């Protein structure tokens, strides 16, 4: 049992936690809910020794504990899966899993065989069928997330804290993770679980604690509450859940892709993208659904000029054939690409918010316009309700969901004609999500074309006018809005 009494923690200009109280029980899944920036991740970091300068007491099985490091927390049986991926790209999966817990033989030499075979077992548990020798840098975000989970499973813990472990996973992997959690729960472990996905919380969580602006505003049993009730606790008012899109008439073709093929970099006779043909119209939102590894991200990357060296096929914009050889060229053709991994691809973490938003719109060989940049940033802070003390806050200091909004802002500010979104609402809370849905719908209404990749079926269904399903680099099905259900989508994706 893990208890907290009056925990408070501040950052310069931000009271992240104020007198937070809770009890997390062994043998239960304890959910923490709250909007972006509510203080959830900070709370977990306080509990695991990442931050030591907090007020209040942490009690583990009734005894007061203070952890001076993450390692100390681990030794006391408290493990964590962080919201942001913390793997070392240049090391292999096995090396990452065993980082800091290496297995050595009697001479102190690393026992690679042992580590690899145990990594392979752990990977099997999380259903990731990749060799443990693979370098992490070649993995997609979702796969990295699975490696993080495998890494957490390596260590025997009594309490396992999970900060949005499913934000980058598709339904299949989520089910698998839920299976693992059920097992851990049966072993009497206390699981603490953060997620913005309501339906999953109702499936697996036993208790809930809701944070709002760093304070506990509610707690209880999941079975005694409703989604609407939880949301109103989180937001402080009622929120409309967006209805499914009914589809609408679209204009001329703005983007056309013909016979796109992308060979696998190492395996012969295999294509990451296999004969892709698609048309995107003005004012249309085209959803692309698929499981992990289906080639969704590769498709967007290829259109954006990232694979131009190996790519075969044709791209037409407004009927004219174009050769997109780099992101710059893509940008000049009115394309924008919101990438999947905000930390490694989206943000310069050490720069402030306004500089990050400005990155896409700077003109070569000109002077910076600090005033204008700040004004733009302020506009988006307002429009997307980014929670931050000011526009000069460093990106690294924002909460995960708010970072995501900054990446969105930086592309919105290029006023693109064709907007490609790869998991645009990853880690974004339910209230902000519906605002972003509105925004996307409005962009489409004003004649922009939108290509939406998402692992969340409800998101695809809520926004798309048309849906393509991808599997193993191919397009396997196409549906109009309103004529498809979750089950059919999933079936076509396998």
């Amino acid at each position: 049992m893990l208890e907290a009494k009056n925990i408070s923690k501040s950052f310069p200009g931000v009271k992240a936690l104020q007198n937070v109280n809770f009890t997390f029980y062994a043998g239960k899944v304890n959910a923490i809910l709250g909007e972006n920036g509510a203080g959830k991740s900070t709370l977990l970091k306080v509990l695991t020794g990442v931050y030591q300068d907090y007020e209040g007491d942490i009690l583990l099985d009734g005894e007061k504990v203070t952890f001076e490091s993450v390692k100390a927390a681990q030794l006391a049986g408290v493990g964590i899966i962080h919201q942001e991926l913390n793997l070392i790209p240049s090391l292999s999966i096995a090396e990452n899993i065993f980082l800091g817990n290496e297995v050595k033989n009697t001479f102190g030499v690393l026992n690679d065989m042992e580590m690899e075979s145990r990594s392979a077992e752990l990977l099997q548990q999380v259903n990731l069928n990749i060799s443990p020798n693979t370098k992490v840098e070649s993995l997609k975000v979702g796969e990295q997330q699975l490696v993080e989970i495998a890494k957490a499973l390596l260590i025997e813990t009594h309490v396992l804290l999970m900060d949005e472990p499913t934000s980058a996973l598709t339904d299949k992997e989520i089910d698998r993770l839920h299976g693992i959690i059920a097992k851990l729960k049966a072993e009497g472990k206390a699981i603490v679980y953060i997620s913005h996905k309501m339906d999953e919380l109702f499936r697996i969580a036993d208790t809930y604690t809701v944070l709002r602006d760093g304070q506990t505003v509610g707690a209880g049993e999941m079975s005694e509450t409703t989604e609407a009730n939880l949301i109103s606790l989180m937001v402080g008012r009622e929120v409309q859940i967006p209805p499914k899109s009914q589809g609408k008439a679209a204009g001329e073709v703005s983007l056309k892709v013909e016979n796109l093929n992308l060979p696998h970099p190492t395996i012969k006779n295999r294509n990451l993208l296999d004969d892709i043909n698609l048309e995107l119209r003005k004012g249309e939102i085209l959803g692309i659904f698929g499981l992990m590894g289906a080639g969704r991200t590769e498709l967007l990357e290829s259109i954006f000029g990232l694979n131009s060296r190996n790519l075969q096929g044709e791209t037409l914009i407004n009927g004219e054939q174009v050769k997109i050889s780099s992101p710059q060229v893509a940008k000049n053709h009115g394309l924008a690409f919101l990438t999947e991994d905000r930390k490694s691809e989206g943000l310069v973490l050490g720069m402030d918010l306004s500089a990050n938003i400005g990155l896409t719109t700077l003109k070569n060989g000109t002077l910076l316009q600090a005033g204008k940049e700040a004004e733009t940033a302020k506009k988006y802070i307002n429009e997307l309700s980014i929670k931050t003390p000011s526009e000069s806050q460093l990106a690294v200091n924002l909460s995960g969901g708010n970072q995501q909004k900054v990446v969105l802002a930086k592309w919105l500010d290029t006023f693109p004609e064709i907007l490609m979104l790869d998991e645009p609402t990853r880690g974004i809370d339910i209230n902000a999500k519906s605002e972003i849905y509105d925004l996307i719908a409005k962009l489409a209404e004003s004649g922009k074309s939108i290509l939406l990749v998402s692992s969340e079926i409800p998101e695809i269904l809520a926004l798309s006018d048309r849906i393509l399903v991808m599997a193993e680099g191919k397009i396997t099905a196409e549906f109009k809005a309103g004529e498809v259900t979750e089950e059919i989508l999933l079936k076509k994706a396998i």
Partner: protein
Amino acid sequence: MNKELLKKSQSLLALFALCLVITLLSDKFMTTTNLWNVLRQISVNVCISVGMTLVVLMAGIDLSVGSVLAFSSAVCAGLLKSGLEFQSFDLFVGFTVLGGVLVALLVGLLMGLFNGFVITKFSIPPFVATLAMLTIARGATMLYTKGIPISNLGSSFEFIGSGWLLGIPLPVWISLIVVLVMVFVTKKTTFGRYIYAIGGNEKAAFLSGINVNRVKLWVYGLAGTMAAIGGVLVTSRLNSAQPNAGVSYELDSIAAVVIGGTSLSGGVGTVTGTVIGAAIIGVLNNGLVLLDVSPFWQQVVKGGVILLAVIIDRKSKGSK
């Protein structure tokens, strides 16, 4: 912003403390002749280090600055001394001081651009590419000078390194201009913003549509140019281009950059910080000579100071 100021005041404080200690130990330090002398010496390292700052901000490194300095100086001196002769055309071109200097800068620029080209085109780590340039340029210098200094370059050329303007040594003016221009470039232009962005997260910068390779190319080009400026100052001060000029200058300039608070992993740091770093090293060098410390001990002390500076820097970052 505040943190930056705090950091700068910290290193400024260290500089003053150093000056104070040396003043207490030697009465030769606080004399106008000595101080001008120190400033004149610092100017060279400032020019080189400002270029190095741009490179390091981008998470790169340039080990070739010392050799580039030597080669561009040698070319400059050679042209001033004996001009260009095309025997087959029976043509002789003499060079004015301005012409010689411009060619030196051009040579520095080209060598820097070559560094940048190799780094971006073949994805060779900057450390390796510029290490190669370090020996190539040094070898080229030896070939060009045949290992013999090129001296007596004329009094108007000598004026650049030894002359005064409005009561201040000319090299100090020149380095001041270099600093002001680069402060402006790093803080106020999109090019400067690109440098910080690439150092902070190259992938994100690339995906934002920034031409990362072109920025890199020019930054290495600038670093070469500024090494050449340093070369002109050294050469004209001595009125002679030495084949082994600038040996191990890359170390002093990396030290100045690091002491000035620029992170070797890129994205963080300032040109003005580097200037303070260069001043600390310059004053230290001067003080050690004035105090008659043996050259061997000088090196040990200098190394110790670099370590200390970086440790303090890390500490103040960690506590934040």
